[in-house]
């Protein structure tokens, strides 16, 4: 375990964390402002990944693939918003969980019908296939650097949107106190649609970008939904800043755990025990983090609600 390995893993953690942020930001805004639990958010991520992979595969153009993926997913999300989500905004959480779980089931079969039950290949764009030499002796995947770059851009963009634009102000008002915002004349319906579609776009972007580095398969949405939910709980529901901090934390802890725990444990435990316990500990690390945060700050790190 040398410095290069450690740096590499930390950068991997950042990349994963930023992608989680793309997902968590939308999820936390929808939950914070519309008080709506949307489990199908992961399915939007999956849609982005599949569309991007297929378009990239047939056209060879990565940027086009990402744009098409985001565009298609936002269209699907718009239909979803009008048909289903609008009717869920005023229902209780359990009804929302049930309905969006149903959407997951429908989405999984839709994907299976369109692209088959097996995982599909999402190739890394040729231009980014090679490593970048960050320092002497530190080659790093240029594609993952792109993930980090996009993540930073999105974070800055969201910060500007939420803190410096009128829409962002409306969004913050809605997150802090929805009823009051309504009384003040905010066109709540429009804000809701905007937030939902923005979330969908970000999720699709994350899916499109994650395709080359993870498996594009049915069930990938559910798999990333759980870490995303953990992130928004740690960060504080409704807070984009909280989602940012928590995503990076979870990304780093999860990746570092998987990379560093097994070798560390091998130093102190028997090899067979280390091989058993290492991965398990790594997997539960983000849950342990959540439990610790909730014990100290029951409403998350940066609760948005007053």
């Amino acid at each position, binding site marked *: 375990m040398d410095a290069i390995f450690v740096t590499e893993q930390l950068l991997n953690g950042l990349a994963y964390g930023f992608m989680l942020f793309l997902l968590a930001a939308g999820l936390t805004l929808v*939950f914070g402002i519309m008080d709506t*639990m949307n489990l199908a958010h992961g399915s939007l991520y999956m849609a982005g990944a599949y569309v991007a992979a297929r378009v990239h595969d047939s056209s060879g153009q990565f940027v086009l693939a990402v744009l098409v993926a985001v565009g298609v997913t936002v269209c699907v999300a718009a239909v979803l918003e009008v048909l*289903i989500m609008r*009717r*869920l905004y005023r*229902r*209780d*959480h*359990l*009804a929302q*969980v*049930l*309905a969006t*779980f*149903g*959407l*997951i*089931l*429908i989405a*999984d*079969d*839709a994907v*299976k*019908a369109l692209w088959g*039950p097996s995982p599909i290949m999402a190739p890394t764009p040729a231009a980014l296939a090679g490593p970048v030499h960050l320092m002497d002796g530190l080659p790093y995947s240029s594609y993952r650097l792109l993930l980090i770059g996009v993540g930073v851009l999105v974070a800055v963009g969201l910060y500007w949107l939420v803190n410096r634009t009128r829409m962002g102000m409306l969004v913050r008002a809605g997150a802090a106190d929805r009823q009051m915002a309504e009384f003040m004349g905010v066109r709540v319906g429009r804000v809701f649609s905007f937030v939902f579609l923005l979330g969908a776009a970000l999720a699709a972007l994350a899916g499109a970008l994650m395709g080359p580095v993870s498996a594009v398969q049915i069930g990938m949405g*559910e798999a990333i939904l*759980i870490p995303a*939910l*953990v992130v928004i*709980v740690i960060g504080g*529901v409704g807070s984009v800043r909280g989602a940012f901090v928590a995503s990076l934390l979870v990304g780093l802890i999860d990746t570092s755990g998987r990379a560093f725990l097994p070798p560390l444990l091998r130093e102190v435990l028997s090899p*067979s025990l280390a*091989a*058993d*316990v290492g*991965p*398990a500990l790594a*997997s*539960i690390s983000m*849950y*342990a983090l*959540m*439990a610790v945060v*909730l*014990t100290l700050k*029951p409403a998350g790190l940066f609760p948005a609600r007053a």
Partner: protein
Amino acid sequence: MTTVDCSDEMSPRALRGGAHGRLGTWLPWGVLLALAVFPLLAPLLEMEYYVGFVRRALIVMIAATSLNFIAGVGGMVALGHAGFIGVGAYGVVALVDAGVGSAWLAWGGGMLAAALAAAVIGVVSLRTREVYFLMITLAFAQMLYYLAVSLRTYGGDDGYGLYVPLSLGAGVDALAHGFYWVVLALAALVFAFGSRLAVSRFGHALKGIRDNETRMVALGYPVFRIKLAAFVGAGAVAGLAGAMLASHNAYVSPSLMHWTESATLLVMVVLGGLGRRWGAPLGVALWLVLTEVLKLYTDYWHWPMGVLLLLVVFLAPRGLAGLLDRRGA
């Protein structure tokens, strides 16, 4: 914030009206009778395969009833209940490995292990509410899942077989459908106990906590202890289901505890009618039968179930039991 219909309870009174009052009393016995003779009639109907199916459904119903109690009556919507099922199952495996041969002892041990897990998890989780409670119970179940995956002695991800069936006692073992009838009897007991519990002092206190916890504290109720007792009890019953599942499948694996199992269990309960007497049986029956039938005809059986969920959320929000209730009243 969960808008559970509190005017309907898990009691015979829930099926209102004269005719339904009588229906409420003899229906459980009728169902019990039908299920009891089913294995004997099955060969005649060429449904012998389905005896195992019904047995599994009954076991799942036991777990669902315990979840329905804490979530519906108690307002504690947990997303980690499958964790206790898993603990019960693995408890049986551990005891069998240690030489236990009696089903009663092994299942009892599994129940105890699940109760202990529920006590620890409950003490930590029950201080939270709503979505935080949902997430924390999910987190603990995932921890149990990964723990099971890491247990190489029990096969880790591959799971572990129970090669020698447990004994239910000489007389019962001799019967072809002994295990089935034991499961049925226990399911009936759990159903009856759940119904009675809902109208007992404990049940009323739990409902009060669900509806207005602050007032319950101000009235002098030891609210935390009541919630914990309910949570541990439900965990134990789920553990029993897990233990029986281990015997039924002659196999355990970590997938028993995956969060999708917890989610499906919750979905079944809400489908049937959260907090209602027949919520768990109806929900489990509907879900398992439908998926089984669909799988016979198509690979694409997920989307019809998804559509069903949407229909229930928008057209029958009180679940199947609520729908039937309204029709009768």
